[in-house]
């Protein structure tokens, strides 16, 4: 089903009875990479287009399945209003665009959070039985409740002030362009009116766009086998001028993206760590 339709379905089922536990569904599909689509993604996010698949693109490939899982009443939270708060992923080896990917998505770790409840959508990608990617997207349902209290590891912290690596001028149409490519057509990214309905003064940038663009700035400095951990901070309102900062760590890089008002993203990336 097209993602737009899934969103419509999710909106239609946003009210009404829902499950209080996670569905044990695993949404699977076999995917071949559409090189023209990969090229459009690479152009927008700043990656070089070639045979090596950028790691954040692996997340994009699993995203439709995340939505499919979250758009049903069997999922405990209504999709509209869910906030993507964290994304971690490990590409165990570089993935080539010619490879046939088995993508499986399931939900786990429903837990309470001081502001509501959190759940992880796990994306696992195999090539011919070999695990090549493990991804975990954490969503927060504000005001919701969950029985279990389970603390998350703290995640990447903003690092000490230093000069910016780059200044990005993000225009008002960015959300629509990334939505077209990623399929993440959440209305808060598309129109200021819809964003207002969800309590944002203007449209907001997709966290995964900001994260991908940050990672793209390190093209050539990292191998295709990497682990990254991204924590999303304050929403990045569009248009905006923001600054990317990068700092080498022992085995990789620390990254943050901030504006004068807020820290929008903190991340670490390093050579792949399994487990």
């Amino acid at each position, binding site marked *: 089903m097209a993602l737009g339709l899934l969103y419509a379905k999710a909106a239609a089922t946003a009210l009404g009875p829902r499950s209080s536990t996670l569905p044990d569904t695993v949404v699977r599909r076999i995917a071949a990479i559409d090189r*023209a689509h990969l090229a459009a993604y690479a152009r927008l996010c700043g990656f*070089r*287009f*070639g*045979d090596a698949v950028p790691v954040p693109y692996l997340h994009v490939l699993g995203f439709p399945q995340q939505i499919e899982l979250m758009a049903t009443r069997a999922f405990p939270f209504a999709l509209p209003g869910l906030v993507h708060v964290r994304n971690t992923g490990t590409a165990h080896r570089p993935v080539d*665009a010619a490879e046939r990917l088995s993508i499986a998505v399931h939900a786990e770790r429903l837990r309470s959070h001081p502001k509501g409840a959190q759940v992880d959508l796990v994306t696992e990608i195999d090539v011919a039985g070999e695990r090549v990617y493990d991804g975990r997207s954490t969503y927060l349902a504000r005001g919701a409740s969950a029985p279990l209290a389970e603390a998350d590891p703290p995640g990447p912290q903003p690092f000490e002030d230093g000069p910016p690596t780059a200044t990005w001028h993000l225009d008002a149409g960015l959300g629509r362009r990334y939505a077209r490519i990623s399929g993440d057509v959440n209305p808060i990214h598309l129109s200021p009116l819809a964003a207002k309905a969800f309590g944002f003064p203007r449209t907001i940038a997709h966290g995964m766009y900001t994260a991908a663009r940050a990672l793209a700035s390190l093209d*050539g*400095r990292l191998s295709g086998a990497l682990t990254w951990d991204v924590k999303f901070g304050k929403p990045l309102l569009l248009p905006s001028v923001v600054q990317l900062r990068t700092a080498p760590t022992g085995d990789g890089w620390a990254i943050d993206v901030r504006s004068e008002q807020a820290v929008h993203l903190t991340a670490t990336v390093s050579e792949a760590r399994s487990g």
Partner: protein
Amino acid sequence: MTSVRRAAVIGGNRIPFARSNGAYAEASNLDMLTAALDGLAARFGLAGVEVGEVAGGAVLKHSRDRDLTREAVLGSSLAPTTPAYDVAQACGTGLETVVLVANKIALGQIESGIAAGVDSASDAPVALNDDLRRVLMKLNGAKNLQQRIAALAGLRPGQIVPELPRNAEPRTGLSMGEHAAITALEWGITREEQDELAVASHRNLAAAYDRGFFDDLVTPFLGLSRDSTLRADTSVEKLAKLKPVFGTRGKNAAAATMTAGNSTPLTDGAATVLLGSDEWAAERRLPVLAHVVDAQTAAVDFVHGEDGLLTAPVFAMPKLLARNGLTFADIDFFEIHEAFASTVLATLKAWEDPAFAEERLGLDAPLGPIDRSKLNVTGSSLATGHPFAATGGRITATLAKLLHEKGPGSKGVISICAAGGQGVVALLEGA
């Protein structure tokens, strides 16, 4: 400064060349050049290594790609402290980057360097209509509302039509193929000999792929592992069926000989060559395939003079040979870029012609015929395709490997014609 030494050709890496709007339709020059550089770095253990410099270029270049080569280096696995610059000499660009890097190595200014070139006919720049561009520049410079309104008054509906890239000489308005057709007619180059040369190019390239010659020179890219122009099964009979496409207008239209089969198609691709001093190669335990001995450029007055657009190498080659005390008999491999089959054949005829030698080249005797079994022995641009600035790198790495196979002291020449009436030739010696 140390004394002059010969730069070593250590190896090369290119991506297969693709017909325009084919496998690389979505790839930019920056994508392809970065891929070729990364492949070279992977082949020779250069990830994180600061190379002396990278010289590169593209003929069809977007304004955003002002420092294309440096941008490619920054996105590659080479150390970001590797300097880079862009070169532009039309189709001579690739070989000129080899000469520039080799000369710096020869002078001891650098110990290592990469020569590179890339072109995309699929992702070519489309510029604003020039009238519209002027209006917008005026608008940009306007200091008040009145000036802005005055600038906007210059807008016309016709300005919406953009400037598409054309393969035409600015001073003559003729395409390169039309220019080549004039030269073909002048030298009486027949359709049959052009088709034969084209078939030989395809067969030689296919045979070279089959024997694994390109295994350490080419890295697959975007699903291609061989040049997509290559037609291993082509034949003179098949090519004879094609209709001429150049020289088909005017009084000599009936004598037109140049077809899509004996002309290179528009192509996308990138090529790189790793050069260094012998010491640098030894330190890094890298092979030396050949040395760059010498090079020569030339230019002709194709606008008001009597020479054809693509004939400058005819004049460069005798100078190169004379300076090195060589004749054609000393040369083991001739790599003559096949912009068009007729260009190669006209070049050979000029070198064989006693009157031309005396009157135009100032030689007592012509350079002479070359042994065809030494010409483009692993195929050339008719079969590989010709992404303009990438051709010099493709040929240099190919020739260096051929010379290495042949043995120390073997000699090869490269001849590349270029738009603007220019030509670059070079002499390599096997190591």
